[in-house]
């Protein structure tokens, strides 16, 4: 078991961690979740059929774990908010408002983009992270998401469009402020 862990760790750990980090936008949370990824992977490693690459398999597990986490959060939120109506369909996540250190150190454009990324829905965010930050191919992204390549392409297209709109919108807002 340890060999499997070491092998996967050396090959893919930073990829998986970075993916989780951008998904949940919090370092310590990503650290917890990456643990869960390994637990799940080691439990089901014998089920890995090699139909996809190890890398996309690992990242797809990480994605499921992140989504599970979001769902739990939403349930908790709902329990706390109680009678207030929480839009069940909404894909938006609560914004903790904190900017991770790593992002805060970057230039303003990057920080701005990071904030606007949050305005995209989860699928759009996922595709952007996979395609541009993880630098996966369309095919690999499709494998991770278990989507068709054309769905990846359209989602990517819409995500970029939305991101661009958000960025220009906020820029205008800033101009008015000035």
């Amino acid at each position, binding site marked *: *078991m*340890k060999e499997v*862990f*070491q092998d996967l*760790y050396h090959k893919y*750990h*930073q990829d998986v*961690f*970075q993916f989780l*980090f*951008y998904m949940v936008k919090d*370092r310590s949370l*990503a*650290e917890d979740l*990456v*643990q*869960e990824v*390994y*637990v799940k992977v*080691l*439990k089901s490693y014998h089920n890995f059929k090699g139909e996809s690459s190890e890398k996309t398999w690992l990242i797809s597990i990480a994605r499921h774990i992140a989504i599970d986490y979001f769902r739990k959060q939403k349930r908790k939120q709902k329990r706390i908010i109680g009678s207030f109506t929480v839009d069940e369909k909404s894909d938006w996540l609560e914004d903790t408002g904190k900017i991770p250190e*790593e*992002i805060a*150190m*970057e230039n303003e*454009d*990057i920080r701005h*983009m*990071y904030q606007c990324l949050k305005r995209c829905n989860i699928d759009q965010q996922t595709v*952007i992270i996979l395609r*541009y*930050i993880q*630098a996966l191919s369309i095919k690999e992204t499709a494998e991770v998401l278990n989507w068709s390549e054309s769905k990846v392409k359209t989602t990517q297209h819409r995500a*970029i*469009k939305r*991101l*661009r709109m958000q*960025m220009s919108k906020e820029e205008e807002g800033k101009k008015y402020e000035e």
Partner: protein
Amino acid sequence: MKNNENNHEIEKMLNQMPKIQDHQDEEELFKKVQQQLQRTQNKQRNRKVWTIPAMTTAAVMLIAVILISVITNQNPTADMAQDMENSSEESASSEDTGTPSHELKMMSPEENDASRDAESSPLPEMDKSAPRSISGLQIGMTYDEVIKEIGSPLEYEDTENQRSLKYSTEGYGIKLQFKKNSQTVNEFTFIPRYLQDTQQKLTIHPLFLRQKIEGIRTMLGGPMNEESVSCFENTTCEEYTYKLNSKDRIVVRTSWNKEDIEFIKLLRQEHQ
């Protein structure tokens, strides 16, 4: 064109997003993962450990149920000969009008086979609340005998083979159906909602005054076989049949809401 340029710019910017590194120690991470794995495996093992006693308990209970039903079924065969002697009118005919009936209290639901039902049914040890003949009412009584038993009505109304008795101004609460060409009653019908505020002295078993099916349940006991029958206006009602003794039945019909009681009948299951 401008859009595409902008898109390209955004894509370029996205590529500049900082690379994030995990600084956790590999060894430590592995230890944590291992611990978590063991915890989940323990949970699974615990679950397995639980299933064995649970299944044993289930098996024991199943055996107990079987034993009880075997014991209660022994009575009928013992009483069979006696029962057959007693009932000259019970022919050995095979078919029957056959509302699937349900014996009172503990007894198991009967099979549809009516002749077997009639002959093998135990002379029931009736429970206290439902004596073998209810408040002395019996199929085959004459009108006078019935009135002596329950008290005379405010008024009555006759239709063919049937006399309806009024005890409350609300309506006719008891109907007596007479056997053709005979003066004897072969079916009693009680309508509880017309028997509530009786101005007249009425002595009948409280069972027939129940207005809710729950009340019947508490008196006659647990899970009854029920049959849905069609009622007026395309609704369905529930009909519960209880076995009073080898021949007599109590049939309880609910209204469409399946709670209120429409009527309670005391009748004899005739063999055709």
